[in-house]
């Protein structure tokens, strides 16, 4: 049942991937300017320029260029960076681990801390704790990430010098970027967990759980939290895209290597193959995230498993 579900759900990725590749390709080619301007030496003749345009296939119609790009990808060839003059696949392979590490830590941070905070605020009787978590949620959902990043750099890196200002050397360089990306996520996850817990607690079956003589803690961990995790998983799956998007700016602010830095630099240079390749990787990560989220939900909820197959 579950395997069938995963299979059909994965099948749906094919049309989505095709549309995404088209959109990425079009957007990139609609940006004014072209990479050749960044490439040729000052004072080159128009014929030199024309030769380069032909060399990179930019003289072909946009359709031919698209199918060439897609066709090559089936052989694992993402093209060659026009300005950086290296295979795009290499560039991605070199930068991806940094982004994945950052993303994974930010994801773990926002889900673990968010779920714990949300659970505490939904179950505590203490008004002070409730107010504190509520304030935190409000702050986390309204403060923009880049502003927070600048504040934290000023305070923790420049003033206290606990963590490095930038770069990706050592684990301590991860702390501030992870906090920056994760902060909004913590607030979101805490809020969703809290609301879901308060909702499920009102359901009929909870009365019967109490009538069985189960303790409140047993009911919380065995029954309420699994229910509350359903919307949390949905939001976390969507969050994967958001975190990667956040990683793009945060990598830039903290001058960390990674897919985001690569993308921003390549955009500046109109390096089409690199922009296309990294955007496609990001899109793929978002799609995989959603897929994982859906599968996780199907594993948790028998009703979903059945409804979709």
């Amino acid at each position, binding site marked *: 049942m579950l395997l069938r579900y995963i299979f059909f759900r994965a099948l749906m990725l094919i049309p989505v991937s095709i549309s995404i590749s088209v959109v990425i390709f079009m957007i990139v080619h609609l940006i004014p300017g072209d990479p050749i301007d960044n490439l040729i030496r000052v004072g080159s003749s128009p014929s030199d320029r024309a030769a380069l345009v032909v060399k990179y296939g930019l003289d072909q119609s946009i359709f031919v260029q698209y199918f060439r790009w897609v066709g090559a990808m089936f052989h694992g060839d993402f093209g060659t960076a026009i300005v950086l003059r290296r295979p795009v696949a290499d560039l991605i392979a070199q930068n991806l681990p940094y982004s994945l590490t950052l993303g994974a830590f930010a994801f773990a941070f926002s889900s673990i801390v968010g779920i714990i905070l949300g659970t505490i605020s939904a179950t505590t009787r203490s008004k002070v704790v409730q107010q504190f978590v509520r304030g935190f949620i409000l702050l986390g959902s309204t403060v923009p990430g880049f502003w927070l990043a600048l504040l934290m750099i000023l305070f923790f890196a420049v003033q206290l010098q606990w963590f490095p200002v930038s770069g990706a050397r050592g684990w301590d360089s991860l702390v501030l970027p992870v906090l920056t990306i994760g902060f909004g996520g913590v607030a979101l996850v805490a809020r969703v967990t809290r609301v879901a817990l308060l909702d499920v607690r009102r359901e009929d*079956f909870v*009365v*019967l759980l*109490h*009538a*069985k*003589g189960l*303790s409140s803690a047993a009911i919380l961990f065995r029954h309420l939290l699994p229910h509350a995790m359903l919307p949390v998983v949905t939001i976390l799956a969507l969050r994967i895209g958001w975190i990667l998007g956040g990683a793009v700016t945060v990598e830039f602010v903290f001058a960390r290597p990674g897919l985001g830095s690569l993308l921003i630099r390549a955009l500046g240079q109109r390096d089409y193959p690199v922009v296309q390749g990294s955007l496609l990787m990001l899109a793929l990560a978002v799609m995989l995230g959603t897929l994982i989220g859906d599968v996780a939900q199907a594993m948790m909820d028998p009703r979903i498993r059945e409804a979709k197959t």
Partner: protein
Amino acid sequence: MTMLEVRDLEVAFGPIAPLSGVSFSLSKGETLGIVGESGSGKSLAAMSVLGLLPLSGGRITAGSIIFDGQELAGLPEPAYRKLRGGRIGLITQNPMTSLDPLQKIGPQVDAVAVLHLGMTSAQARARTVDILGTLRIPEPALICNRYPHQMSGGMKQRIVIAMALAADPDLLVADEPTTALDVTVQAQIIRLLDDLVKERDLALVLITHDMSVVAQTCDKVVVMYAGRVVERGTVTAIFDAPQHPYTQALIGCIPGAAGADEHLTSIPGTVPTVLNYPKGCPFHTRCAHMQPICTTDVPAFVSHNDSAAACHFAGDMK
């Protein structure tokens, strides 16, 4: 032997008191029916007995609930938890929503024996299969691996009954156990409960708004209206000679019963909500025999054979 005795129970949610002066008692092997239209306070009475009022923010403000010689009003939560599911079982109204949809049937029933009888999960499962069998559930071992949404309402209600029975309780509280079910299934469930009371010598509180169910299965009846008991007594006494106009009206609505009004399927008007409980006799706003005193004084109980009714004119009317 008296299993449950509720005396002058009063329940409040903050400043409002939807239940007051509720008394009834019941022995082993007996079925007590609590009847009344919806909003009369039947569920609150049930929740009081199970100590579950705090879930919805309510509390017992007066009176006592004696279960097998033990005072339950004010009993600390850890002690109450041992009784709930252990010696007192609850069956709720809507089986469609009374099981955890994310868990298989088996573990949900097993949990009770694990908790109250100290069984291992394997022992508890054997017991679950056994109980499901006695409740006439086909292929009990297979059912244990099913999820609630894969079963019919009647089957789910049997599962709920199995959970209530899993630790061999002395008292069952069934809050409208058949209201949400098909008519044919309703009869099966009522018969099942009736058999259980006889086989296991249980005390059963059967809450219903169906007078014909009471006539078939109960030994005693408590008629509730607007959070108060208006009449109580043995089934025979109350069906033979109902003293309270509300009881008379309820019986009048049973299709085909002796003394039934052919044109009436329900009593005109509605039960007042807790926010506008009438002064004096709670029923006076809908009573055909209303007199000035009914609007000012709460009537005391007047005994008549094996029943007692809270009506200023009990015995005077026929």
